[in-house]
């Protein structure tokens, strides 16, 4: 097998290679500032932090591949965290075991509602998920009584999010690996995955080809909601409790990570390797800017400029022609 075919097979196309190239450039630039940036310990810590973003981005990618977008991610993250931590208080000791599945299930439920709105009401996903985000926010404000709740994360959440069980590798990384493998399997080995790409390219054609497009839409939104809630559960484990608006800083980085990884924001094109690269890129960028004690103002400007700059390198659309 020649090199081109091999890279094609694992999805190493131009955007992905540019993204990985940028990761190396960032690390080298960082190491000029401090050799710490190339230490194994620092890299593992970044991957642990990046795992939360990675899980959210996995779900966001499934929806973006359809040509849709999920703006309800921020409060679905918070919902997952709050429901999982609150369950113990509601049903007693059994809640310890059910906490994580319950949180994920709540997120999936919101995702199904999003999917129903987009599939059957045919509302633009951008506006429907936006409304859903406001509704979930309202529910969570009501749930906590307007204050940060005192519910604490269970040991299992803490174990998954913070502990390092095998060879000093953070458990969160294994969780991301697990979610990532599910996405790769779905996209590459199942009819569902082919349907996702088909709908992203042209939904009417997918429909005429006999694909149950509405079921695929609902499935992807449910997966996205579940991923967001799962990340919320882990974040609650990471910071030992759930609090209001904990998901707000994750929406834009998740979308940016997916798009920087070469997934077309209009759907139909993209692979998971790119999303991994995008997540690591965003995480490293955020980390290095904060280590360099760049003020927030400069961070935002650099953050936005890097996204524009990278997309100008490889994300340009076609010219309008006859």
């Amino acid at each position, binding site marked *: 097998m020649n090199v081109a075919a091999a890279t094609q097979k694992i999805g190493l196309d131009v955007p992905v290679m540019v993204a990985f190239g940028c990761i190396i450039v960032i690390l080298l630039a960082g190491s000029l500032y401090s050799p710490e940036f190339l230490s194994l310990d620092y890299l593992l810590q970044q991957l642990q932090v990046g795992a939360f973003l990675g899980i959210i981005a996995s779900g966001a990618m499934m929806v973006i591949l359809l040509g849709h*977008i999920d*703006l309800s991610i921020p409060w679905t993250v918070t919902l997952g965290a709050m429901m999982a931590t609150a369950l113990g208080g509601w049903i007693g000791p059994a809640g310890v075991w059910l906490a994580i599945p319950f949180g994920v299930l709540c997120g999936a439920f919101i995702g199904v509602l999003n999917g129903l*709105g987009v599939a*059957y*009401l*045919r*509302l*633009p996903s*951008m*506006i*429907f998920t*936006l*409304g*859903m*985000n*406001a*509704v*979930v*926010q*309202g*529910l969570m*404000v*009501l749930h906590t*009584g*307007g204050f940060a709740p005192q519910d604490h994360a269970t040991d299992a959440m803490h174990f998954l999010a913070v502990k390092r069980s095998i060879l000093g590798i953070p458990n969160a990384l294994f969780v991301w690996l697990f979610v990532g493998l599910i996405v790769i399997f779905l996209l590459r080995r199942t009819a569902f995955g082919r349907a996702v790409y088909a709908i992203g390219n*042209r*939904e*009417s054609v997918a*429909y*005429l080809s006999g694909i149950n497009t509405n079921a695929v839409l609902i499935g992807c939104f449910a997966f996205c909601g579940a991923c967001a809630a799962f990340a919320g559960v882990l974040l609650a484990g990471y910071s030992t409790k759930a609090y209001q608006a904990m998901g707000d800083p994750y929406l*834009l980085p998740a*979308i*940016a990570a997916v*798009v920087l990884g070469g997934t077309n*924001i*209009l759907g139909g094109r993209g692979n998971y390797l790119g999303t991994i690269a995008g997540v690591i890129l965003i995480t490293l960028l955020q980390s290095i800017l904060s280590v360099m004690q760049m*003020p*927030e*103002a*400069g*961070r*935002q*400007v*650099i*953050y*936005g*400029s890097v*996204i*524009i700059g990278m*997309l*100008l390198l490889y*994300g*340009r*659309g*076609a*010219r*309008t*022609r*006859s």
Partner: protein
Amino acid sequence: MSDWRYHISHNLGTLTAVGLFAVMFTIYISNHEAGLTPAVATTAANKAVLLALVAMAQTIPVLTRGLDLSVGSVFVLANCLASAIVVGTIGQGLLGCVAVLLLGIVCGFVNGAIVVWGRLQPIITTLATGAIFYGIALWIRPTPGGDVQYDIADFVAGQLFGVVPTALVVLLLVVLLVWIPYRSSPLGRGAYAVGSNEQAAYMSGVPVEKAKIAAYTLAGFLASLGGLILTFNTYSGEASAAIGGTYTLNSIAAVVIGGTSLFGGWGSAIGSIFGAFVLRTIEDLLFVFDLPPLWQPLFQGVVLLVAISLGAIRVFRIRNRLELFT
């Protein structure tokens, strides 16, 4: 179809928003203990005009089948800059106002240039430029504060002849002097044409690139005008990501409630103004009906979701299922 029926069906979205607003505002006023006094009207108008301007800004890129997620950031950036340079004598203050609006135009032009010449998707472009504009706002004003020229501020936030809220007059002037001329200009017609079918517009000789750049530039101008008026209301500047995000998201909701299609080519900024008024009146209604504060976010969210779900009515009018997918 006779002429007036055509006009009604063409402007149905706007008319629905106007009707919704009229009903809600009547309920609000009849339950307000003071009734419709100039002071009550001015307070309501000052809040509503801010969102109305940002919603108008959002409408124009949406008409071209684009989107501007940076309107909130431009709004905040204009607020921060105005709190720094609209000071001194009235003359200096007015010069500062011009500078703030120029900055908004530049921000909008940058968006348009990246979308047209850089050929990037509007969503992701304006997401990124939004971060940049917010960063600049934070650089101008790291902590909330600043000042504003009081004479201009009191004039704009007050009433004309002691009756009419000046902010409403400003909004009316924007509609008459900016929106209506723009709408009937080649650039405005081009924006509708591009939104409806870019290829066909290109083939018909519509200046596609110019129309798109003009749309984003005008959006930047209107958003910065909103930010300027915010400064006149608050007498200070604040670089708050939350304010920017709320205004961006509410502007999209206002556009949808005002009957503009997110798929482009259909709608009007006047509808968006009333969409914004509807959203603001919802908040005021919660206030006069004394809903427990804890329930307010949920109630607002549900009303928002129901309002945008009204757009699903078109599903029931479609005869050919394939039309669902456009």
